[in-house]
């Protein structure tokens, strides 16, 4: 069993929004970035995975287990960190420790207390009085203090200072270190998280746009720049998300179409962000 997370034809219908046919697999020991603009369906997907939303269409398996087969075991495998605190506002750390101890057999109090000390989280404050950073670290402490298989992070590093972001990156890489556990994180800004992601899944308006190993994605595309007037029709057909500015254009081109470029244009290795931006642009135009 090499796949830790299997998502098959996941769909969810709302009045103004559809999530349609999301399918991917994430092998054990790897990290996936689930990327898209705000409102593209990232949170919906992750909530379907954690089971907070009811999964009616499609199938999700974690470590081979579906939620229907064993709700408790399924949920025990997941560690979830959200973009804002999901703890009851009026709880203190002791209450959270108490609840986790009751519900999760693998919870280690020592580990948990270790994180609380390490990150200087206040024992006697109400959670609603925590800073944003403290809330995020408390979520991490509550999740990492027990034995999970899949970390699900929904925009968890938004608005954190660079020191904390770096700390979290290290945490995630340590988490997958033994090659048995995986991470899926959603984000609309890639930057530092991009570095450690093995796979990128990119959705827009509930539809799949790109899904591949990150290194492949970067190699499969070129960022092309030059004078708009000089673009031959054959090339124009292949350019993705052509953005014409006053002094020239910028677009993405599949690497296998590089021979169309000739000598007239500048091309370079794109970042994932650049691929994403031009893909969104090309979708908007359709």
């Amino acid at each position, binding site marked *: 069993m090499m796949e830790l997370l299997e998502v098959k034809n996941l769909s969810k219908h709302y009045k103004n929004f559809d999530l349609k046919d999301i399918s991917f697999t994430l092998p054990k020991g790897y990290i996936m970035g689930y990327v898209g603009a705000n409102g593209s369906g990232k949170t919906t997907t992750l909530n379907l995975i*954690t*089971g*907070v*939303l*009811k999964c009616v269409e499609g199938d999700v398996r974690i470590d081979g287990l579906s939620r229907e087969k064993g*709700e*408790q*075991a*399924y*949920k*025990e495998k*997941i560690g*979830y960190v*959200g973009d*804002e*605190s*999901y*703890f*009851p*506002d*009026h*709880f203190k750390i002791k*209450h*959270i420790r*108490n*609840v986790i101890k*009751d*519900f*999760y057999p693998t919870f280690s109090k020592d580990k948990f207390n270790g994180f609380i000390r390490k990150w200087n989280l206040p024992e006697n404050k109400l959670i609603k009085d925590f800073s944003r950073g403290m809330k995020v670290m408390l979520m991490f402490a509550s999740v990492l203090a027990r034995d999970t298989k899949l970390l699900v992070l929904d925009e968890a590093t938004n608005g954190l200072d660079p020191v904390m972001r770096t700390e979290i990156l290290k945490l995630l890489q340590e988490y997958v270190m033994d090659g048995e556990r995986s991470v899926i994180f959603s984000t609309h800004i890639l930057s530092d998280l991009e570095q450690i992601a093995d796979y990128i899944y990119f959705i827009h308006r509930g539809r799949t746009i790109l899904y591949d190993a990150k290194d492949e994605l970067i190699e499969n595309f070129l960022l092309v720049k030059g004078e708009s007037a000089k673009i031959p029709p054959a090339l124009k057909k292949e350019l993705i998300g052509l953005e014409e500015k006053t002094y020239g254009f910028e677009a993405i081109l599949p690497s296998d179409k590089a021979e169309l470029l000739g000598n007239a244009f500048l091309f370079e290795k794109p970042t994932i962000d650049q691929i994403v931006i031009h893909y969104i642009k090309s979708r908007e135009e359709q």
Partner: protein
Amino acid sequence: MRALHFMKIDYMLTRKQMYFMPAILVLAWVVGTGVSKGAMSLLVTCSYVAFVASIFSTAPFGYCVRKNRGFLLLLPATVKERVAGRFLYGLSFVGLLGVFCGILWGVYAMMGYELPLWTVAIGLCELAVGILIMALEFLFFYLFGEGKENWQQLSNIVRIAPGMAMFFGMTYFVGKIEEIQSTTAGGMGIDPEALSGKFMQVGVIAILAALLLTAVAAAVCMKVIENRDYA
């Protein structure tokens, strides 16, 4: 077992109100003695306590607005267990207040007050009605409002109105009791004392019926919530 753990969570969520509950119980006793004496005052006190129970037993719903609930939804347990935990909280909370009334009753008996059995039966009926109101409120909250914000006013009416109606009804009843007693006793020739055994049966049956209806309400809530998102 996990249902009990959910019940514990509700007690942790509402721990603040437990701190001032003793004061409220004292107030209930003061209200009772203000309206009447002896067994009658106990009936008023008990109806006040049932009123309090019907308000405060729904408190966990208020603490469970959307953004605070994620943690609870992620816990490895089924919807059934979570809903059962909430109902156990409600029942145990009403039960605890019922125990307080029982103790008060005992204290009055030891102090030599005359406590006819039929008043005890009415006390039990009050407890049963308290449980029933709690169950109906839970049903309402689960079906129409769990997790919703911005419905404070409606939820407050739902929390307060039924218990309040019972309390004022009881106060009115106690005020009229002698009149009623004389009409029933004189008019129909019934001796209340002779019927005491029957009264007790009525009290016990009322409680059992309330528990049964609570179980039905819980089952309905489970069924509904199982098919709901964020629940």
